[in-house]
């Protein structure tokens, strides 16, 4: 067996960080091959640290890492993409925080899903940085593709009760079952939320389309709000909690 190498190089996006000791930080990062990692960056809270500016949240960074006992240690850090546009807008900072929290929550994914999650994360950050699409639509697209990558793809084509294709009428969402029931099966459900046909249509479009085909979509405010509500309740059911960044996002988003 090959000897474990003492140091490695990796691309990473900084998701979170917390202070440790006098001047160190523990970073939670997401990497394309190793998934979610916790690394220690020593001395980065000193204003003279030459690494600190490269290790801020949401930065896409090239890291040299030495294996350590409790945490692997960041020895070099160079910014690949700093996303300065994103960082200069409160609403976008709030949205990026939500994206980072979700990637953090799902970061211990199967190895096969890691590269897909990495690309999804970078696409979301790039779009929040410079993209012209609606940032909330981007979040919805991100949510549904994240769910798909993690194996929680909601069933949007067929009724979970009778298996018949769902018709363009009001169908019933079941969070527990992970999909929809047609009107006649939905009547027998104990907990089923009626969802309008347009909402289901938008969800399907989001699920099967790349972002480039979605970004120019213009939705009515009420449709957008219902799509958001369905996806966020679905995510909360999968995570078994409501993401903590959501109330901050709503507050910052309301400032425009």
């Amino acid at each position, binding site marked *: 067996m090959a000897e474990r190498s003492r140091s490695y190089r990796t691309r990473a996006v900084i*998701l*979170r960080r917390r*202070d*440790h*000791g*006098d001047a160190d930080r523990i970073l939670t990062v997401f990497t394309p091959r190793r998934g979610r990692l916790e690394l220690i960056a020593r001395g980065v809270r000193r*204003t*003279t640290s*030459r690494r*600190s*500016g*490269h290790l*801020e*949240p*949401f930065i896409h960074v090239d890291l040299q890492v030495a294996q350590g006992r409790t945490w692997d240690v960041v020895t070099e850090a160079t*910014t690949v993409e*700093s996303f*300065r546009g994103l*960082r*200069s807008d*409160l609403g976008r*900072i*709030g949205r*990026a*925080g*939500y994206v*980072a*929290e979700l990637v*953090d929550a799902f970061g211990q994914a199967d190895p096969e899903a890691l590269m897909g999650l990495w690309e999804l994360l970078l696409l979301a950050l790039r779009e929040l940085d410079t993209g012209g699409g609606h940032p909330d639509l981007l979040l919805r697209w991100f949510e549904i593709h994240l769910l798909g990558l993690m194996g929680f793809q909601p069933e949007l084509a067929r009724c979970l009760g009778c298996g018949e294709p769902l018709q363009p009428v009001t169908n019933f969402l079941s969070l527990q079952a992970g999909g929809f029931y047609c009107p006649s099966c939905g009547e027998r459900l104990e907990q089923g939320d009626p969802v309008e046909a347009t909402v289901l249509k938008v969800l399907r479009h989001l699920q099967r389309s790349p972002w480039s085909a979605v970004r120019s979509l213009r939705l009515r405010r009420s449709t957008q709000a219902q799509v958001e509500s369905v996806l966020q309740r679905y995510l909360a059911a999968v995570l078994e909690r409501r993401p*903590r*960044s959501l*109330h*901050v*996002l709503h*507050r*910052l988003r309301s*400032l425009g």
Partner: protein
Amino acid sequence: MAEPLAQPVSNLIQAFSRLPGIGPKTASRLAYFLLRADDEIALNLARALEELKARTLFCSVCLNIADQDPCRLCADPQRDPTVICVVEEPLDVQAIERTREFRGVYHVLHGAISPVEGIGPEDLKVRELMARVRRSLETETPVQELIVATNPNLEGEATAMYLARLFKPLGLRVTRLARGLPTGGDLEYADESTLANALTGRSEL
């Protein structure tokens, strides 16, 4: 099986390990040091800890930790109440006081906006700052400037942007500490944001 450690010792080790930056090893080392050291050292520490909780309070004006209310800075007639320096933590007040450059007063937010951690503006002492500023506008010494001295990182910048959005409409000047290259730093190692800020914030020679 008997406990390997006497109960008071393991209690103290546990208490120490809850402190930030202290692992189980350091905690044991501190506990055994106190066990062997002069009684005076341990008793002084115990008294200091007791007083820390019993004799400190939050200043009702600036929210800093103080031993009187209002705190010595807020009560000092020599300080200019029309300029408020807004900081994240009480330790930041001390850092700025050490420069002896600032003659205004402070406001401590007790944190910074961090979406990932779920910390929003309503979790900080922003409402108190707004009430304080509004109150002052009725007096002869209305607040004229907020100097936002939050940390030069994502959370601190987000907090600064938020405060600017909130307080500029009241007609206040909202300023930010200049951000540039750190003393002792090397230009080639500077990250993009630091360099960009240093360029926009450049000054006449």
